[in-house]
C-alpha cells in the first residue's frame, strides 16, 4: 500500500492548533446543535415526523451536543501548553465540517479509563483553589492546573455518559400491532467513518416471531450486529434493507430512513465548491453566524410483499421496494429530502444569489434569540 493513497485519504483533515480557533469551532457547534433540536420539533409540528421519531432524533441530537461538549473540554487548552498534550482537534474540512471519526474512537478509548483517571485527580474545587494560590502567590498563569481541570471536566463528561459514540447500537420500540404482526421502530446511529458525519437510522420492521423481536435472544443480538455492520454511508438504503430482509426470516422491514446530520459549511473553516461557497463568501457574516448546515433525510418505503422460492421446498415473503421513478437508481430510496439550516445573513445572501439547485431544498432560518423560521 503506497503512502500516497494514505495521504490522499487524509488530506482533507485539518488540525485546529490555534487555541482561539478551536474555541470558536466548538462554540459554533454548540450553537448549531441547539438549533438541530428545534428543527426536529418543527418537523414534528408539521406532521412530517411522528412523535416517537422526533423524540428519538432529539435524543441523538442531545447526545451529539454532549459529545461536542466533552471534546471541547478535552481541547480547552489547545495551543496554550507546550508539548504533545492536549493535542489539537482534527476535523474534516471537505464536505463534512465535523470532527473526524477518530476523535470519537479515541474518546471511546479514553472512556474506558475515565474512572481510573478521575480517582487519581484532584477535585475541581481544590484545583481552583490551587489556581488562585498560584495567581496570587507566584503571579503566573496556572496553565498546568488549567489543563488538569480541563481534563477532569472531560473525564467527568465521559463518565456521565449520554454521548454520541462512533457507534450507537440499535434500540427497539414497540409501535403497534398490525394484524398478526408486531410493528417495531428500531433506531440506531453511527458516526460514519468515511464521510465523518453523524447519521441516524430509523427502521420500521414487522415481526411474526414467537417472541417479540427485541427480547428474543436468538435474533436481537444478531440483528443488532447486522445493522451496525451495514451502516455505511456508501451503501444505499435499498441495499441495507434488502440485506436485512434476506437474512432474517420472520422480520419484515417496511420502511427505512437515514437522517444524515451535516455537512456543516463555513466560509472560514471548511472548503467547499459550488453555490454554497459563493453564498457564504457573499454573506460576510460575523463570527458565530458564518455557517450553513445541511440535513438529509433518505426515506425508503416497501411497495408490496411477494412470495419467493427460498431453497427447494420452502418459500419466503420478500419486500419489493418502491424506488423513486426518476433517480431511484442513483439514490436507492423512495424519497430524498434535503434541508438547510442557516442564520439570517447567509440566508439573505442565498436569497439574493438564488443559485440553481436550491429551489427544492427546504430552508430553516435561525433568527435572533434562536428563533427558527421555516422558509421555502
Amino acid at each position, binding site marked *: *500500500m503506497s503512502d500516497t*493513497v*494514505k*495521504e490522499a*485519504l*487524509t488530506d482533507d*483533515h485539518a488540525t485546529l492548533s490555534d487555541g482561539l480557533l478551536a474555541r470558536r469551532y466548538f462554540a459554533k457547534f454548540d450553537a448549531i446543535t441547539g438549533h438541530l433540536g428545534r428543527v426536529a420539533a418543527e418537523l414534528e409540528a408539521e406532521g412530517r415526523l411522528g412523535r416517537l421519531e422526533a423524540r428519538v432524533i432529539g435524543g441523538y441530537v442531545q447526545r451529539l451536543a454532549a459529545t461536542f461538549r466533552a471534546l471541547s473540554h478535552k481541547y480547552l487548552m489547545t495551543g496554550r501548553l*507546550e*508539548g*504533545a*498534550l492536549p493535542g489539537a482537534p*482534527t476535523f474534516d474540512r471537505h464536505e463534512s465540517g465535523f470532527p*473526524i*471519526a*477518530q476523535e470519537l*474512537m*479515541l474518546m*471511546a*478509548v479514553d472512556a*474506558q479509563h475515565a474512572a481510573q483517571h478521575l480517582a487519581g485527580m484532584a477535585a475541581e474545587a481544590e484545583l481552583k483553589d490551587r489556581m488562585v494560590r498560584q495567581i496570587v502567590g507566584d503571579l503566573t498563569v496556572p496553565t498546568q492546573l488549567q489543563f488538569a481541570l480541563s481534563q477532569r471536566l472531560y473525564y467527568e463528561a465521559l463518565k456521565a455518559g449520554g454521548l454520541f459514540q*462512533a*457507534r450507537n447500537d440499535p434500540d427497539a420500540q414497540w409501535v403497534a400491532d398490525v394484524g398478526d404482526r408486531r410493528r417495531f421502530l428500531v433506531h440506531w446511529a453511527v458516526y460514519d*467513518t*468515511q464521510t465523518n458525519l453523524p447519521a441516524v437510522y430509523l427502521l420500521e420492521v414487522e415481526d411474526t416471531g414467537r417472541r417479540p423481536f427485541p427480547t428474543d435472544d436468538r435474533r436481537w443480538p*444478531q440483528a443488532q*450486529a*447486522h445493522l*451496525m*455492520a*451495514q451502516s*455505511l*454511508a*456508501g*451503501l*444505499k438504503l*435499498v*441495499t441495507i434493507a*434488502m*440485506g436485512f430482509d*434476506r*437474512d432474517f426470516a420472520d422480520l419484515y422491514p417496511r420502511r427505512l430512513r437515514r437522517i444524515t446530520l451535516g455537512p456543516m459549511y463555513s466560509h472560514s473553516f471548511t472548503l467547499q465548491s459550488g453555490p454554497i461557497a459563493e453564498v457564504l463568501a457573499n454573506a460576510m457574516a460575523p463570527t458565530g453566524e458564518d455557517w450553513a448546515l445541511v440535513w438529509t433525510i433518505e426515506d425508503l418505503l416497501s411497495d408490496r410483499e*411477494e412470495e*419467493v*422460492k427460498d431453497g427447494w421446498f420452502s418459500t419466503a415473503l*420478500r419486500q*419489493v*421496494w418502491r*424506488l423513486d*421513478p*426518476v*433517480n*431511484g*437508481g*442513483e439514490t*436507492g430510496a423512495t424519497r430524498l429530502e434535503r434541508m438547510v439550516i442557516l442564520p439570517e445573513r447567509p440566508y439573505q445572501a442565498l436569497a439574493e444569489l438564488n443559485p*440553481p*439547485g436550491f*429551489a*427544492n431544498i427546504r430552508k430553516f432560518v435561525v433568527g435572533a434569540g434562536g428563533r427558527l423560521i421555516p422558509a421555502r
Partner: protein
Amino acid sequence: MATFDAQIAESQKQIAEAQEKIAAITTRIETARQNLSQGDASIDIENATLEDVHKHTDLMNANIAELIMGLDDVTAGFTEDFNELRSKTTMESVVGFFSGSKSEAMRQERLRTASIDSKLQDLISKSDVIVKLLQGQLDLLNGQKTKVEANLVSTLDERETTVAELEAVRTRVAAMDPQIIELENKIAVEQDAAARTKLETDLATLNAEYNALVQDEQVKLAKSQTLERYIEKGKTWVDSLQNQAATQMVLINKLQTDTRQRVVLYDALTSSLKTAQQQDVAHRINEIGVKTDQEAQAAMAAIGTATNQRMADMLEAHEGHMVFARQVLEAKAKADERFARRFAKIVEKHDKNQYGE
C-alpha cells in the same frame, strides 16, 4: 497479542530506568549547585555518566520505534480480514460445487455482517498506549529541562558577579603596583633613619594588603572557573534533554499520523469492498422482483458496470414510469444541472434505442 503486551512491558521498564537515570543526573547537578553556594567546588558529573544516559535513552527510543513498527504486525490481522472478504470460505466453495448461486448468497450474507470496527478500536487503543508512554517520557524531559534551566540562570548570574568582583580586585592590584614602586624608590633615597623606618612600615602594610588582594584574586578566579565548568556541564545536559525531547516529539507525531492514516485506509477499504459487492446486486434483485437465483447470478456478472449503464437499466425496468419521469423532468428542468445532464444521456440512449451496447 502477547508479544505486543510483552513489548509494551519491556518499553515501560526501560522508560522507568531511563527516567531514573535522567532524574539522577539532574539531582547531581542540583546537589553540585548547593555545594557550590556552600563553597565546595567539586562537581562529580563525569562525561561517562552522561554517555551512559544517552546510551540508555537511545536503546529505549529504538525499542519504542520497534514498538511502533510492531503495530504493523497488529495490522497484519487486517489483511486477513480483507482477504476473507474478497474470497470464499471452504464451506462456500464446497457448496459452490453444487450450487453457485447458493454459495454466492452465503458469501453475501457473510459480507453483510462483517465488521472491522473492533479491530480498528484495538489499533487505536494500542497506539494510544504507546503515545501515553512517549508522552510520559516527554513530560519528564521537559520538567527536567525547566529545572536545570532555572538552575543555570541563577548560576550564570552568580558567575557574572564573581567575574565582576575578580575584575575589581585586579584593578585594585594594578593600582597598587605604582604605589609600591614609589615607596621603594623613596626608601632607596631616604637618609633620615626615623623617616626611613616609617616608610618601611608603610611599605610592609601595603605589601600585606597586596598579598591579600592577590590571594583574593586566586580564589575568585578558581570560583569563576568552577562556575564556568558547572555551566558547561549544565548546558550539555540541557542540550541533551532537548534532543531527547525532540526525538520523543518525532516519535509521537509519526505514530499519530500513522494510526490516523491507517484507520482511514482500512475503513475505506472495508466499506468499498462491502459497497461494491452488494450494491449492484441489490438493485438488480429488487428490479427483477425477487424472481430466481439464476437472475441473481446474472446480476453478479454485471458487477462493476458503470453508473450510467446501471441507471439506464433501472430506467428501462421502470418503463411504465417513463412518461411520468419526463413530466417531472420538465418541471425540474432548471433545478438540478447535474441531474439534467445525466438524464439527457439516458434519454438520448432511450430515443436511439441503444440499450445494452
